[in-house]
Every structure is written in structure tokens, then in C-alpha cells.
């Protein structure tokens, strides 16, 4: 129990001071960690959102779009890194690629579902009013889909922030440098860096929940329930934007009780 207390001191001592054997402070490492995560997230968003939007708009390839996130989740991150190492070496690139492989699928799936499930009637009305396809996409589908898209990005962010710790083994920097290094920093050091990591994860959740709330059209907001999770009651899981991937059975192959939809209720990935 001592270590837990010492860990606090550790954070306090080394937040602004250089850690032993390096010229970085904990604050520096935290920034590195965030930067690394950000790089991966940007790439993941650039890949996932446009592709998801396209597929969702044309209502095609639903099976792939929805199940790719299951696939992405299943892939062990360390395994991916191991496979990449011979090709991209021990570098930040390897870690980023692995992070993108794991972050992009949920974003893709969420975006797909978000766009796809904008009600057919709404889209129809928009077309009937004379909007061109891209206008429909940008002015109607996108705004309605934004909360869900951001929910997907939020999930991926928490995941990436957590998994970026692995870079401590493979030369990417960040908090992993401490967490993966008990030999140098002792158990309390690892715990201390973990405190910081947990705070980062929680903060990113809060930031994104705020963004989601902000981009939800006022009419669709449900204030008190926004951040509170609860088990779904109805047979058809509502598209609750606070869920990670609501997936309300958009695919033609999806049965209303498709467990893939429930599969996507989990909280985002494990902090590595």
C-alpha cells in the first residue's frame, strides 16, 4: 500500500523534473503520449470517416462495415506490433500503424452506422426538396450522424491512449517509457505513471462526451441521461449515442437480435 502513496509523490516529484536516466519529465512524457495518440487518431479518422460516410451513404457493404470493428477489436495489439517489427523496426511508426489498425475499425463502423441509419424518410424528403447527393450527405446525413461518429472517435481515442503505453517497449516514447520499465522506476513509479494515464483516459472521455453533446442537434439531446450508461431495455437496442457503437442492425444480414450489436456495447478497450 505504501507504493500507492509513494506513487503520488513520484508524480509530484517528477512532473516537471527530469526522470532518472533521461532528459524528460513526466509532463514531457505525457505530452509525447498525447502526441503519439493524436497522430494515430488523425490517421484513423482520415481513413475511417470518409470511408464510413461513403459506404453508409450508398448503403452498401454493410456486413463488412459492421464486422470490421469486431475484427479490429479482436486483433491483439502486441501481436500486430510483433508482425510489423521486422518491416518497420523499433520506431514510432510501428506503434502508430498498430494503433491505427485498432482505432480505425470502430470509427469506420460507427460512421457507417451513423450515416446509414439516418432515416430513409428524412433523406427522401431532402432529395425531394431538390438537394443534390453531396448536399444531402453534408447537410442532412452528416449533422444527424455527428453524435454517433464522435462516439466512435471517443471509443477509439480511449483505446489509443491506453494502448500507446506499449510504445514503452518499442521506442515510441510516452508514458509507456515508465510503465514498461519497472526496473528503472520501481513499482511505485509504474503506479504513478498509471495514475497519469488513467487521468488522461478519463479526461479524453469527458472531452469527447462534451463534443458529442455539443454536436447533437438540440432536439435530440437527452440531458440527464447523456453520460450515464444503462442496460438496454427494449429488444431493439436504441441508437443511444453514449454507447460506443450502437449499431442498430443496419445490415441486411442483421437479425434484430444480432449479437454484434450487443457486442458493441462494451466500454472501449482495455488500458494496456
Amino acid at each position, binding site marked *: 500500500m505504501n507504493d500507492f502513496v509513494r506513487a503520488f509523490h513520484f508524480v509530484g516529484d517528477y512532473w516537471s523534473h527530469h526522470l532518472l536516466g533521461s532528459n524528460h519529465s513526466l509532463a514531457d512524457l505525457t505530452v509525447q503520449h498525447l502526441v503519439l495518440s493524436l497522430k494515430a487518431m488523425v490517421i484513423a479518422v482520415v481513413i475511417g470517416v470518409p470511408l464510413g460516410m461513403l459506404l453508409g451513404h450508398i448503403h452498401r457493404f454493410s456486413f463488412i462495415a459492421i464486422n470490421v470493428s469486431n475484427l479490429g477489436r479482436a486483433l491483439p495489439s*502486441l501481436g500486430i*506490433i510483433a508482425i510489423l517489427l521486422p518491416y518497420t523496426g523499433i520506431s514510432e511508426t510501428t506503434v502508430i500503424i498498430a494503433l491505427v489498425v485498432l482505432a480505425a475499425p470502430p470509427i469506420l463502423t460507427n460512421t457507417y452506422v451513423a450515416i446509414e441509419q439516418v432515416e430513409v424518410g428524412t433523406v427522401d424528403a431532402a432529395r425531394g426538396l431538390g438537394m443534390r447527393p453531396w448536399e444531402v450527405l453534408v447537410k442532412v446525413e452528416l449533422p444527424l450522424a455527428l453524435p454517433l461518429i464522435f462516439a466512435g472517435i471517443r471509443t477509439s481515442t480511449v483505446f489509443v491512449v491506453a494502448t500507446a503505453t506499449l510504445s514503452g517497449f518499442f521506442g515510441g516514447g510516452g508514458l509507456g517509457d515508465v510503465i514498461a520499465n519497472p526496473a528503472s522506476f520501481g513499482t511505485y513509479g509504474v503506479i504513478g505513471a498509471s495514475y497519469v494515464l488513467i487521468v488522461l483516459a478519463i479526461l479524453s472521455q469527458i472531452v469527447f462526451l462534451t463534443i458529442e453533446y455539443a454536436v447533437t442537434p438540440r432536439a435530440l439531446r437527452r440531458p440527464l441521461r447523456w453520460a450515464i450508461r444503462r*442496460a438496454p431495455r427494449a*429488444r431493439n437496442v436504441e441508437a443511444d449515442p453514449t454507447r460506443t457503437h450502437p449499431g442498430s442492425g443496419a445490415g441486411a444480414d442483421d437479425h434484430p437480435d444480432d449479437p454484434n450489436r450487443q457486442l458493441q456495447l462494451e466500454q472501449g478497450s482495455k488500458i494496456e
Partner: protein
Amino acid sequence: MTLGIVRASVLYADKGPKIPDFGKTSDCVKNNGSFCWAWFRHNWSSQFEPRLWEHIELTVVSVGVGFVIAFVLALLAYRARWLAGPVTFVTSVLYTIPSLAAFLILVPITGLGRMTLYIPLTSYTLLILFTNTLAGLTGVPDEIKDAARGNGLTPMQSLWQVELPLAIPTIMAGVRVAVVTIVSLATIAAAVEPVGLGERIFDALNKGNFHTQFIAAGVLCVLLALVADGLLVLLQRVVTPWTRARRTR
């Protein structure tokens, strides 16, 4: 630039790859080519297979024990709904603890043995298994529960004959997530205790980035997760034949 690279470079800077000598070292291995199939086949049963089984064992035991615990908790919370909040909170907190930290914290308590790994791994499964089991049960439509009661099933009979079977898809979905999550985390466990496929990965690091070993271990790891996921999907389809039935006209 970072401690990681410092560490890695200290290991093998200027020394060239430290390839283990297995007697006749092939050229492929000496040159650290991408994947030396012969080496892999030669060493499969001594180096990789046991690790694979260790990995499977870690996963199965952790998810199995976690499932039992989560199942009991979910049944309790199903009867007494006020429990759902506290249990979710506790399991969430457990889930949030970074795995490396968790393993390390336990070392002084449970020593350098399997328990140090089993305890955190099991606790990481609790959140998803509890959430999905409870969600599966509460997701059973009210009219079906009404029909069950109205036809004379006792609460117990209704639970076991109607509600649980209908909750299976959701529960299985949770099990799938739990399994692949633990497969992934078990690789990380090797940083603390040389066990499972993760051990092969870290070992390869120490051997100067032995490429074949990286790829072998990495691919095995990925395959394990995918195969496990696929098997569970099949299992679920076998156990819930009604979910595939469609109106033919």
C-alpha cells in the same frame, strides 16, 4: 529520443543481431531474414507450441472464472436491480487499471507466479461479462416474460427455460469480447512473467530483434484471437438455432 529506443539500442548496438545458435544455423537465420520457415518448423514444438497452450490456458481460465463470477453477479442484479450500479462501478474501476500496473502491483503480494496474472486478467473480464449478461436478461421483451408467467411457469422456470436462452446471444457477444481482450492482454503479461506467446515476442526483442520469431509469435497471437472469436460465433449459432430462422414467404 526516448527511453525505449535507448533501451533497445543498448541491447544490440554495434553488436549485430544475437541469433541463438541451434547448431547448424541457416543463412536465413544468420541474415535475420523476414521469415525462416525451416527454423520455425524445427522449433515449433519446443518453443512455440507450449507457449501457445500456456496462452490458451491463461485465456480459458481467466474468462471461465470471470464468467462464473459475472454470471452470479448478473443473476443477483437481475433480481435486485439496485445492485447493477455498484457492481458496474466496481468492475469499471477494475477495468480501468492499466494491465502492466496491475500485474506489477500484485507481484509483491502473490509473487512471481500464475496467480499474479490470473487475478488481473479475470478481473478485466468482469465488466463486459456482467454488463452483457445483465443486458441480455433485461433485454428479453416484456410480453414474453408475461406470456411465460401467464402460462404457469414459476419464476425459476421462466429464468432457466425462457429468459436465459433468449439472453444467450448477448451473453455470447460479451464472451467473445472478453476472450479476445484477454488474448491480447495475456501477451502483455509476458512483460512481467515469461508466459504465453508474449514471452516469445519479448524474447525476440532480447535476441536482437529476431524477425522470424517476431512474426511467428505475432501471427500465432493474431490467429489465436481470430480463431477463438470464430469458434465462439459458431458455438453461438449452434446453441441458438432460432436466430437464423427467417420467414421464407
